[in-house]
């Protein structure tokens, strides 16, 4: 399988430059975890983000994307990062803290103060527009 491998970098995903999580997506799907993608990784990414990918798969990768520090939990710092990326730092610190607390409060089922994949799935499968927004068309 090792033939014809091209390296894709995060910068090459120009079409989706506006996505606040572009760096994370590249990291999650790349094998080396640093955003350098082989062709296979690239295909992986598009297969997961395609319309037909099953919801649980999508949810799993969404979890990975939002899990900034790769510790398999979405903890507060991850949430803060996500929020700041989403709002371009326009919320005040208080507001950010409050939102993060609310998120944990809502979605954390086992009360460990962070979201496990299970919590995340539990929450995301109920989201009405997760499937419609979490995909890319080429």
């Amino acid at each position, binding site marked *: 399988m090792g033939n014809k491998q091209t390296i894709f970098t995060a910068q090459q995903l120009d079409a989706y430059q506006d996505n606040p*999580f572009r760096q994370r997506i590249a990291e999650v799907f790349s094998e080396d975890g640093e955003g350098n993608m082989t062709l296979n990784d690239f295909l992986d990414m598009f297969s997961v983000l395609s319309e037909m990918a099953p919801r649980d798969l999508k949810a799993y990768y969404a979890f990975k994307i939002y899990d900034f520090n790769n510790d398999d939990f979405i903890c507060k710092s991850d949430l803060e990062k*996500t*929020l700041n990326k989403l709002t371009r730092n326009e*919320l005040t610190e208080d507001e950010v803290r409050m*939102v993060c607390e609310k998120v944990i409060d809502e979605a954390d089922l086992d009360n460990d103060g962070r979201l496990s994949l299970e919590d995340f799935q539990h929450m995301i499968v109920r989201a009405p527009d997760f499937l419609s927004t979490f995909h890319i068309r080429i």
Partner: protein
Amino acid sequence: MPPKRKNDTAIKVEDVGMDVDAVLDSGSEEEARRRTKNRRIKPQRKAKQVSDDEEEEEEDEAPKKRGRKKKPKPQDSDEDDEEDKRSVKSKGSKVSRKKAQKDDSDEESEEDRGKRKKGGAVSKKEKEEQNKDKKGNPKERRRDSKGGDKDKKKKNGKLSSSSDSGESDEDSLSEGELAALKEQVEEKKKLIATLRNKPWRMKRRLVLLKEAQEFVEKFEGALGKGRGRKLYAFKVMMTKKFIKFKRDFENFKTACIPWERKIKEVESHFGSSVASYFIFLRWMYGVNLVLFGLMFGLVVLPEVLMGLPYGSIPRKTVPREEQDSAMDFSVLFDFGGYCKYSILFYGYYNNSPTIGVLKFRLPLSYLLVGVGIFGYSLMVVVRMMARNANEGGDGADEGEFTFSWKMFTSWDYLIGNPETADNKYASITTSFKESIVDEQENQKDENIHLRRFLRVLANLMILCCLGGSGYLIYYAVKRSQEFSKMDPDDLSWLQKNEVEIVMSLLGLVCPPLFETIAELEKYHPRIALKWQLGRIFALFLGNLYTFLFALFDEVTAKLESEKIIKNATEWGLNEYYANYSSFYNTTNVPPPNVDPADVVRGPCWETAVGIEFVKLTVSDIQVTYLTILIGDFLRAVTVRFLNYCWCWDLEAGFPSYAEFDISGNVLGLIFNQGMIWMGAFYAPGLVGLNVLRLLTSMYYQCWAVMACNVPHERVFKASRSNNFYMGLLLLVLFLSLLPVVYTIMTLSPSFDCGPFSGQDKMYDVVMETIEKDLPAFIGNIFTYATNPGLIMPAVLLMVLALYYLNTTSKGYQQANLDLKKKMQMARDEEKNRRNNKDSTNQVMKDLEDLLPNKSLVPPPTEEEPPPPDVVTEKGSKSPKTKPGSATKGVNLQKEVSLAASNPRGPVTRAPGPRGGPPGNTRGPQPGPGRGRGAPPRK
């Protein structure tokens, strides 16, 4: 036994494979099929029934069904079974022969078989005791992965013999074996079809795909499959096309919604509350378009096309004394002169019962349209309210995951355009702010007594304001009545328009005043908006009704003067006839030959009323637009550019930029609509004017908002239903319906203008039509229907129905509440249960870590194709092959099991029963694995 096992496997695939049902397939798969097809052209052994069979197979349920059916006995007389058998029989010998030729590929098939066996084993295990299966499985797995052919042969006995011992017992393939083979092929095919849905890395997928393809290629040809491939490809293509078409169609539909983009843009920057105004405006525009269509199509157009032209009769001519100034701008601007005697107003319409060659009954149509406008509006408003009520709610979200969803699903990954992205950022920020405001409001609790006192105080002050403004209007109206008795030439413009000015000024000054007072109350902005709306509504209502009463005075005065003129005219006519007949001594008197401009005519109060409404509407438009221009645009410009040379920060400090005034605008719109409803009967052109106004207003205000306004300090979410607006609208509709219906029913129309001239009452037109032009029995029906004896029971019935429905809806509400409570409780319970389980899991995890067995699981080679049906096992293996995804494997398992989505699962699978040490060797299991958090595998 073997077939049964296979069936189990098949079922297992159904269970485990994620989303097997998705018939969709990737390009790669299609390509693969094509490839195999090309290669398979040589074999070319396709029987007819086989193609049927394959079609069957492509529906994903088919294998399952077949599998189940075969379980009891393979010879089940199901149709496709039979077909299978036949095909299998006919092709069986060939299969084996070909197999003999292809020795080199045997190995692979063996591997496949191994995999399958594994799958079978797993499924069997599933059915058996857990402890047992844990014991058995790892061993088996290990053996398999080592590629021990012997094991396989021993285990699978006959099964595997079908492949690698093709030479030995060539033509002796039993039916069961063939069926088994077929199952395999089907599985492979299904794997190909659903490969893209599997949670594997691309590398594994490619390997798997290749293998599956090769396998299918080899055996499928042998089994005579492959016809219908074209059909299948075609089907696939059509599905894709269809999906694309559907998507395009959706886009098209969205693109067809007028101003959707504009509104979304506003919404993303100013929040849903401001957007709700624009949505309301758009809805209003739609309603008015319909009204305009009715009015224009059924009244104005027929009169223009088929009625008498201008200047033919007195009512369509400007009177002689007005003709000099009829084209003056000042006169036209007051809708006098030519405007007054045009199709814009009631007086222009002729009273001939039918017009034109079509015998169009214009007067009847006029009345029916006038009433129909109300009917349609009522229906639309009520329907809209009902629909909104269904959506329910008060903006406060009942969802459990408001913030989480906002956080994790609000970004649309489809966005690939910087501008859209900017809007999206803005809208996400706004929506977060909205939710934060709501949340803060929930958490707030302060000095309730102080708050109450302040609220009472605020209401008092506002009542004073309302009373004051009411008196002011009353005073102005009184004065204007005095003025109207004087000679109009002596009055200045100010004196003439005093009432309008006072009303506009009140409308300008009071709302901000109310807003300031409302600060005292410290309501949630959404509730504050409602209060504000209610108060301004009260203010405007006062204005409206003062205006109406003034108008009524005018109308009665006009009616009196009209009576005099009418008598005089009749008297004059009588004189004329008498003189003429006595002079020429004939009874055949021609009508007096007078120029239509010179005919003496009454004041025509209907037109006067129409003019009043049109004037009011126009002045309202002017005031609104000027306010926006000065209050928003000029202010923004000043603040923006004077800021460079000013002693304090204008942008942050005092004048600042304006906020968008939702309440004022909404009420302006509502009252404007009230004017339209009231005036439309007397001024058919008013509806057209309003359509224009709304159209321009949409663009103008959208621009103004985006260019000169700043978002509210506390962006708040609009209530999801605009029912408050709708309620106000309904109220205004009702209030405007009253006077119009009153005038139609009680006042007698002018004798010399309008479609009803010469009649005693306007509705006589209807009576006349019923009596003269409709069959007699309809007239009878009407008489019966208007009988009090019938109406009373009908009313009674309606009241009863109302009562019943009200009770039912209350019951439902109660049930709703209860259910909500239950849901909350269930959620809490689940939370608790999960907590408990987690703690036990912790113990389990520690136990597992203690055990050395884990290391015994051999590191599987990467090239080994994973069993397609044992997704979960694969998942647990993958970490070893790919360091980057060490944790992924585990989570995948959970994911797979979660796909089954049985929330109770983890509890029934409490760690108790499987606590035995052997269980741990296997690592996380598909089923129970979900119960545990991610950490154990790390």
